[in-house]
Every structure is written in structure tokens, then in C-alpha cells.
């Protein structure tokens, strides 16, 4: 029995269908054609209205600067960290601390950072009044600053763990250790040797994820709502405002802005690609100059301090959320609350638990579907000897490269037209678009690394392909599958815009609830929801680590990896 060729087709449909349909919907609405709302196009009115919006250039600049700066800084930190420390004991410790940070949802990390660095935040409390003399929070624009620096910082602390873990996975295929040995034998310093001999090979393997970070950082919504400026906000936040406006005609304006957002991201990606060539040419000069750069201590210790700072900020942010959720009274210059009480949890607990249920239901449904599709695709590709080309990898990354704000508004309008928006299933399928790529990226390596001779032995013993798949391959990959499920659940839990737009405000998850609290500024409620959101994303990872150990406690050879 062969698997139906259905699965790869369905996967492509689930992956690309919403993106393409959404872009079509956005394009249609951007030229003023919205029959669902009684608007007949085409007309240039939405584009004209967008150009006349006074905040336009500030919003565009904000998106470009925060996205570009965050991506560049994250990449530099990760590169310098690997260059200076790869293979050392501090590096391994660093990786171990950074890995769990990957699954802390963006919104929770942003709230934690907010509680840390805002004028009434922990850092200033710790310095007041003994150093600063402040008895009340100073009137400083430390967050939501017009330059978007706080937002950039928030993005950096989240993207550094992502790029680091992606790089480490790719590093295994570069023969880095051998190249480093040769560079060292030629007298090159540690960092320069790595940059000159290994980095080019690594970068070509992490190029697509870097593009994802750039596209994401330029168009992020939840973090920008929490840490970014509000008058004017980033372009993506403004799109969301227009989409949520009771005046439905503003949707065409939102769609025109969405199209602009897409253009901006495409231009930024092209510019980044051009810069890659420029950097390559310049560094060729540097490489052939023969300088050995042996004194790189300043770089090594500089970057490790930066990375430690990222980790510390996220951890103290989470600690701050925890304290606020239990704080009874906590007046300004005090560094710690007067007393702790569970009253915030008691007050918000029932709603939070109900929301937690919806959150998990959506996450598990989307991840379950994605798991069946992904494993089905991998098995079908193997049985039919289909090779996945570089171009197919671009298809996989497409939903992560096209900004969410560019296609979700169009998708929502289309769903509205057929009356399918606001349902739980619509939200699940919207999440599936973003869960699928991560599941594939997470499972592909382990699936293909499985020793094919096991399958040949089993076939020789008379086992059918299905029996080999279900009785041998899947159980042997249990650890990898559970990790992939945890990743998928974390990705789904973190989704803000798809839940909000496709759910039409009817479907509430921990993320939408937490971000909605941002405007009100009730720190105790924010603490409860953001902490619960983080716990919900981390718990599956803990289970994925513990379950294989418990299930295979009597099977020594199943414990590696």
C-alpha cells in the first residue's frame, strides 16, 4: 500500500493557499474593490488616502529602522559569539540558557522588558532614590520612544536565541572544526579564523532564516504594540488599527498600507541581498590581506557580555512579571513589593484558565494537523524518491517571509465574504500556515538521519512499509517528534495577529488577552496572563524532554540526543 499522494498536495495547499488568497484579497481591497462591504473598484482612493496620511513616512521609517537594526544586531551578536566561543565550555552553558528563551512568546518577553526598563520599571527602582534622587517615576521616553529603540531591543533579545540555535544546527554540516584547525595552524586568531574560514559556509545555510528574521522584525505587531511608539505607530500596527476600526471603509486603506508593507519588506530583502555581495567583496580584501588578528580578546569578551545581557533581560523580565502577578502593594521607588498575595491570580484565574483551554485547543489542533502532514510528506517523498529542491525550501519559507500584516487582512476579508471568519477552525488553519514550516524544519533532519538499514532489515523480515513506518521509524523518532510538537505548540501559542484578525475578536487566546491588556496598564493582570502564556509555551518542551526518558527508561540506546 502506498500512501496517497494527497499529503504533499494538501500540505502545499495549507501552506500557500491562505498566503496567496490573502495577498489576492489585500490587492483587491487596496484598489478599492470590496464587494463584501459594498465597495466596487477599481479606484485609486485608498492609495491616495494612504499617501495623504500624515504619519506615513514616520511609520515607514520606523518599520525599516527597527527591523533592519534588530536583524543586523542579532546577526552580529550571534556571529561574534560563535566566532569567539564556539566549542568552549562557556559557550555550551550559554546555549543551554538561551535554548529555553527561544520558546518564551514574543509578547511575554516584551512585557518583561517593559516592566524592566520603563520609567517606573525595575532598573530605575533599583537605582532610586539613593542614586537618582527620584521619588516618582521620571518623565523619560524609555519605552515606546519615537525612534523605536525599545522595540528594537525587544526584537534583539528574542531573535538572538533563534539565530543562535539555527546557526548551531547548520554549523554541524560545515566541518567547522577542521577549518578552524587549519586557520589556527596558519596563525589566525580565534575569531578571525572562524570568520574567514567557517562563516561563509555557515551564512549560506542560515540565509533564509536571516531573511525570516528581517521580514518578521519589520512587520511585528504584538511586540510593537507593547514596546513601540503609538503616535504614529509602526506601519503594521497602523494597519491593524485601520482593520479594527468600526468604519469598515478604512479596510481598503488598511489593505493599501498592507501592500506598502509587503513592498517595503521585499525591498529590504533585496537590499540585504545586495549588501551580502558587498560585504563578501570587502571581506575578500580583508582575508587576502594576510593580517592574523590574533588579539581578539576585546571582541570575545564584549560579545559574551552582550549575549549575557540579552539573557539577563529576558530572565529578569520574567521574574518581574512573576513578582507583579503576586504583588499586593508596590509603590514606586521600592525595589520589591510590600507583600505578596495570590489575589491577582484569584481574580484573573478563572478567565485565564478558560483562555488557556482555548489556547491549547487551537495549538494542539494546528500542531496535530501539521504533524500528520509533515510526517506524511517526509514518508511519501522517501517512498517515491522525491528530492526536495532549494526552490521547494523557498515555498516552505514563504509564509514566514511574506509579512503577516500583508496577507492576513486580505484573508480576513475573503473569509468574511463567505461567512467563515470568527470560527475556531478558521483560526486553527491560519495557525497551521505558521506551524507547518517550523515542524518541517524541526523534523526533516531527524527523519532523514534515521538509519535506513533498520528499514531494510525489517523489510527482509517481511515487514510492510507501513509496519516499518509505524512500528519502527515513528517510535524510534519519538524524542524528535515530541520536540517538534512542543515547537509547534509554542509557535501557535505565540501567534497574535492570525488569532486576532481571523478570529475577529471572538476567539481569545492567552496572547490576544495579554496584548489587549497592554493599553490598560494593569500590571498585575498583565503579569498573570504573560506568565501563563510563557508557562504554556514552556511546558510542552519540558514534557518533550521528560517523556522519552520515562518511556524508554529501560532502553539505553534510545537516550542519545
Amino acid at each position, binding site marked *: 500500500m502506498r500512501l496517497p499522494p494527497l499529503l504533499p498536495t494538501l500540505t502545499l495547499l495549507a501552506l500557500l493557499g491562505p498566503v496567496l488568497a490573502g495577498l489576492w484579497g489585500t490587492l483587491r481591497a487596496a484598489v478599492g474593490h470590496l464587494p463584501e462591504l459594498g465597495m466596487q473598484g477599481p479606484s485609486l482612493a485608498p492609495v491616495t488616502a494612504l499617501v495623504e496620511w500624515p504619519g506615513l513616512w514616520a511609520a515607514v521609517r520606523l518599520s525599516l529602522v527597527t527591523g533592519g537594526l534588530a536583524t543586523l544586531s542579532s546577526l552580529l551578536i550571534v556571529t561574534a559569539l560563535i566566532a569567539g566561543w564556539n566549542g568552549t565550555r562557556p559557550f555550551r552553558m550559554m546555549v543551554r540558557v538561551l535554548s529555553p528563551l527561544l520558546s518564551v512568546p514574543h509578547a511575554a518577553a516584551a512585557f518583561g522588558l517593559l516592566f524592566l526598563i520603563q520609567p517606573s520599571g525595575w532598573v530605575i527602582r533599583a537605582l532610586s532614590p539613593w542614586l537618582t534622587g527620584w521619588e516618582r517615576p521620571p518623565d523619560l521616553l524609555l519605552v515606546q520612544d519615537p525612534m523605536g529603540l525599545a522595540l528594537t531591543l525587544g526584537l534583539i533579545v528574542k531573535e538572538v536565541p533563534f539565530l543562535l540555535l539555527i546557526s548551531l544546527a547548520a554549523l554541524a554540516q560545515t566541518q567547522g572544526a577542521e577549518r578552524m584547525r587549519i586557520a589556527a595552524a596558519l596563525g589566525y586568531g580565534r575569531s578571525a579564523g572562524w570568520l574567514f574560514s567557517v562563516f561563509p559556509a555557515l551564512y549560506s545555510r542560515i540565509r533564509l532564516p536571516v531573511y525570516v528574521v528581517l521580514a518578521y522584525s519589520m512587520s511585528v505587531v504584538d511586540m510593537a504594540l507593547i514596546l513601540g511608539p503609538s503616535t504614529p505607530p509602526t506601519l503594521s500596527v497602523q494597519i491593524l488599527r485601520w482593520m479594527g476600526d468600526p468604519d469598515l471603509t478604512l479596510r481598503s486603506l488598511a489593505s493599501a498600507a498592507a501592500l506598502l508593507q509587503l513592498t517595503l519588506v521585499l525591498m529590504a530583502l533585496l537590499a540585504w541581498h545586495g549588501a551580502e555581495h558587498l560585504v563578501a567583496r570587502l571581506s575578500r580584501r580583508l582575508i587576502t590581506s594576510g593580517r592574523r588578528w590574533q588579539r581578539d580578546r576585546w571582541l570575545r569578551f564584549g560579545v559574551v557580555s552582550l549575549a549575557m545581557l540579552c539573557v539577563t533581560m529576558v530572565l529578569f523580565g520574567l521574574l518581574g512579571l512573576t513578582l507583579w502577578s503576586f504583588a499586593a502593594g508596590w509603590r514606586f521607588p521600592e525595589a520589591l513589593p510590600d507583600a505578596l498575595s495570590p489575589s491577582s491570580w484569584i481574580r484573573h484565574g478563572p478567565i485565564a484558565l478558560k483562555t488557556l483551554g482555548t489556547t491549547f485547543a487551537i495549538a494542539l489542533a494546528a500542531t496535530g494537523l501539521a504533524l500528520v502532514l509533515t510526517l506524511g510528506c517526509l514518508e511519501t517523498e522517501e517512498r517515491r524518491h522525491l528530492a526536495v529542491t532549494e526552490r521547494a525550501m523557498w515555498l516552505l519559507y514563504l509564509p514566514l517571509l511574506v509579512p503577516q500584516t500583508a496577507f492576513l487582512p486580505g484573508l480576513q476579508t475573503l473569509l468574511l465574504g463567505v461567512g467563515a471568519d470568527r470560527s475556531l477552525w478558521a483560526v486553527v488553519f491560519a495557525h497551521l500556515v505558521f506551524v507547518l514550516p517550523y515542524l518541517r524544519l524541526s523534523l526533516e533532519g531527524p527523519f532523514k538521519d534515521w538509519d535506513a*538499514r533498520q528499514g531494510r532489515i525489517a523489510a*527482509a*523480515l*517481511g515487514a510492510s512499509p507501513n509496519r516499518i513506518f509505524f512500528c519502527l521509524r515513528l517510535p*524510534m523518532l519519538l524524542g524528535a517528534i515530541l520536540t517538534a510538537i512542543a515547537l509547534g505548540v509554542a509557535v501557535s501559542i505565540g501567534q497574535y495577529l492570525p488569532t486576532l484578525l481571523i478570529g475577529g475578536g471572538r476567539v481569545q487566546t492567552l496572547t490576544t488577552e495579554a496584548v489587549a491588556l497592554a493599553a490598560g496598564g494593569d500590571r498585575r493582570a498583565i503579569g498573570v496572563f504573560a506568565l501563563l502564556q510563557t508557562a504554556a509555551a514552556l511546558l510542552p518542551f519540558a514534557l518533550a524532554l521528560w517523556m522519552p526518558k520515562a518511556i524508554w527508561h*529501560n*532502553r539505553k540506546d*534510545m537516550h542519545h540526543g
Partner: protein
Amino acid sequence: MDDGLALRNLRISHGERPLLELSLTVAPGQVTTVMGPSGVGKSTLLSAISGHLAPEFSLAGELCLRGRDLIPLRPQDRGIGILFQDHLLFPHLSTGDNLAFGLAPRHRRADRRLKVEEALRQIGLEGYYDRDPATLSGGQKARVALMRMLLAEPGLLLLDEPFSGLDANLRRRVRQMVLDTARDRHLPVLLVTHDHEDAEAAGGPVITLATPVSDL
């Protein structure tokens, strides 16, 4: 000769390029050894016989076991047992379940446990049903892997350098055990190795594959 393995003008090509062509027969209880430098197509030959040839290869000629044409059959219908250098016991199954995985399906559920216990006794591992295969010694693993294959009642044994991972002492004992068992059961055996000692111990005809002329 209808009761063993027969290859008549079996040609394997990689795309348009002919890779190897050979004829050979292996009678029941006989061991034929195939030798040759690496890259000459020994593994490809084993893949062709067991039915795992990658799609970029093509196959022509005759390949029969006990008078039955193997080429149209799926790997699991060919009745060919394989032993690799690593014993490849399934790491998530107990020692006994590994044997039960191999035990031919015609045995009824109630009998299977008894059959496996009996098989464990035969290889000197009585009471090892629930043991983690990872905790077995190298020699014990080799015996379990061999028994697992025999329980599937194959009509032919393919040995893909199955002894090269073992140290000299164990190597001799495991080789003796495998070859004796095959002879006792009147199984035809095709052994691929690059070790002359293996070939001598096998005692049967030795076929040396040479690099194809086109590659020189």
C-alpha cells in the same frame, strides 16, 4: 539448479552507464563470497538482490531464488535475510520483541511467546525476553540478530561485511556460528567482504568484482 540462488547475466546500470554484469549460482548450504575494491558495486549488487535498488539504477537479466523470479517482488516478499556489520537490533524493543518482530506471521499469537522463548534458549539467552538489547554483549547481539533473521524463515542469507566491526577473537566465533547455522539449515549464502580470512572460512567459490573498463 532450482533450489538456490541464480543470477544469469544480471546487469546493473547507473543511468546509461553499465555498472556490473555477472552470472552466479549459490546452492543451498553453500557460501559464495563476493570480493572487490570499494566502489565496485558490491553494495549495489546486494541492494539489487534484496530489492532496495535506488531508482537511478536499472536492472536487466535474471534473478531467481528457488526457481522464483525475484525482480517483480517487493523486498518484504522476497524471503531474503540480511545481516549488516552493526547488528541493528531495534533499540526501542526488548530482546524478545526483536525476535518476535522477525518470527513468521503464520505462528498464532498464543504460540509466538513460546516460540521466541525457545529461540532464546537455542542461542543461550534463556530468560532474556525483557532485556534491553543495548545491555547485551557484542556476541550476544550477533546471536540475536542472526536468530531474528532465521525466525523469518528466509530462503537466502545476504551477509554485508557482517563481521568487520568485531575484534579478532569474537569475529572468528561469530563467523563460525553464522556459517555453521546456514549450513545446518541448507541456506544459500552470499557473503560480501573485503577480508580474505572471511572468504577462506566460508570455503565456497570466490568471485572478485573488478573495476569496470569504462572507469579506468
